[in-house]
């Protein structure tokens, strides 16, 4: 029976990009649909009734939602080029860093991006403290997955291009090379890796989009109290 693999994502979503990466890295044949989130397709609403969000992977008609869940599903279903190691302890560590990325890094960077004035200073401070854990974890490693790209690299990969976008919009450097030499090197190596390098959404389009997303926060902060 022919495999049918469909990925619902958007042109800009870093979560959708993760799923895109793993399918490409494994050489899986798939179709993708870039959704318009202001006008969600019936397929999206039907496939992810709980959250109504992207990405959704639909494999032979069966939907899977939540990007980290999708990554593990793809890794278990198509066994070539494994993302997760065999050893249970190493697997637990890989999952830990992927979760840390979503629970802590993402939230702290987003706060640094949307907050203003003194709140922004504090948010940037917190983001830097969070990023230090990543810098420490990269000691002696080329990627978070070790010698090659693994689950945590795909989970944290959004840093490699969105950090530059955020820095351009807010006019503040978040990941300085002197303070984060390993993380900076990783960002560069990941960004230029085969498959990954062809997939980045257009930089200018991202800057425009995120600048627009930041506007309401700037406006709210400018309101007289």
């Amino acid at each position, binding site marked *: 029976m022919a495999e049918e693999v469909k990925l619902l994502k958007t042109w800009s979503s870093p979560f959708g990009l993760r799923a895109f990466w793993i399918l490409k890295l494994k050489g899986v044949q798939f179709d993708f649909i870039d959704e318009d989130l202001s006008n969600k397709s019936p397929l999206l609403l039907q496939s992810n009734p709980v959250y109504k969000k992207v990405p959704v992977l639909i494999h032979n008609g069966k939907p899977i939602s939540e990007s980290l869940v999708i990554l593990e599903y793809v890794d278990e279903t198509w066994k070539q080029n494994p993302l997760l190691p065999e050893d249970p302890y190493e697997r637990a560590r890989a999952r*830990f860093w992927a979760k840390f990325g979503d629970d802590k890094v993402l939230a702290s960077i987003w706060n640094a991006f949307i907050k203003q004035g003194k709140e922004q200073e504090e948010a940037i401070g917190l983001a830097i403290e969070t990023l230090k854990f990543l810098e420490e974890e990269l000691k002696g490693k080329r990627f978070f997955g070790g010698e090659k790209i693994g689950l945590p690299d795909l989970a944290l990969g959004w840093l490699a291009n969105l950090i530059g976008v955020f820095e351009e919009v807010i006019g503040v450097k978040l990941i300085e090379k002197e303070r984060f030499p390993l993380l900076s090197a990783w960002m560069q190596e990941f960004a230029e890796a085969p498959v990954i390098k062809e997939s980045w959404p257009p930089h200018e389009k991202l800057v425009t989009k995120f600048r627009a997303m930041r506007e309401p926060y700037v406006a709210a902060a400018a309101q007289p109290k």
Partner: protein
Amino acid sequence: MADEVILLDFWASMFGIRVRIALAEKGVKYEYKEQDLFNKSPLLLRMNPVHKKIPVLIHNGKSVCESSIIVQYIDEVWKDKAPLLPYDPYQRAQARFWVDFIDKKMYDTSRKTWATKGEEQEAAKKEFIEVLKTLGGELGDKPFFGGDNFGYVDLCLIPYYCWFYSYETFGKFSVEAECPKFIAWVTRCLQRETVAKALPDEKKVFEFVSVLREKIRVE
């Protein structure tokens, strides 16, 4: 060589209880070390430097953190007995999805049912009931989330039950009245010795929550 398994935990933690149930299901012998969360031990800080939280599983000196990750680790290491995650990749993905849903939705909403008041508390109650109804929808007519057998999702959700009495008392609502199917599932889980032994007494939890409420000055 004998396995050395240590669990750093706090008696009332619904996250710690998950790990205790998983270890019991697998018949793993371990040393339980109760932690003082208001005065964290050097061991806890060393074993979980990133989050400084419990539960932490220390297996032959190596630490595993985050309860859902610990449970999967336990399932993979002690794989010859009582499988917790399903065998099929699609079923596994569904199980992971629902545990992620529980982690995203249950804790913050349930906490607000006792840690807030007025409108905020009312909104939290409504949201909490919605979360339980969504979970009830997923359970459907199955005996367990895992189907015929108690599994990963059941294990990750049931520890919240010992806190229900606190939510209901402070929030002034009844889970049984709102979601009877949910309570039927709870009863089935409690018939399992591993679950019944791992859940602390709900009245003790209530006393603890009362103290917490005073500490954060809810009234």
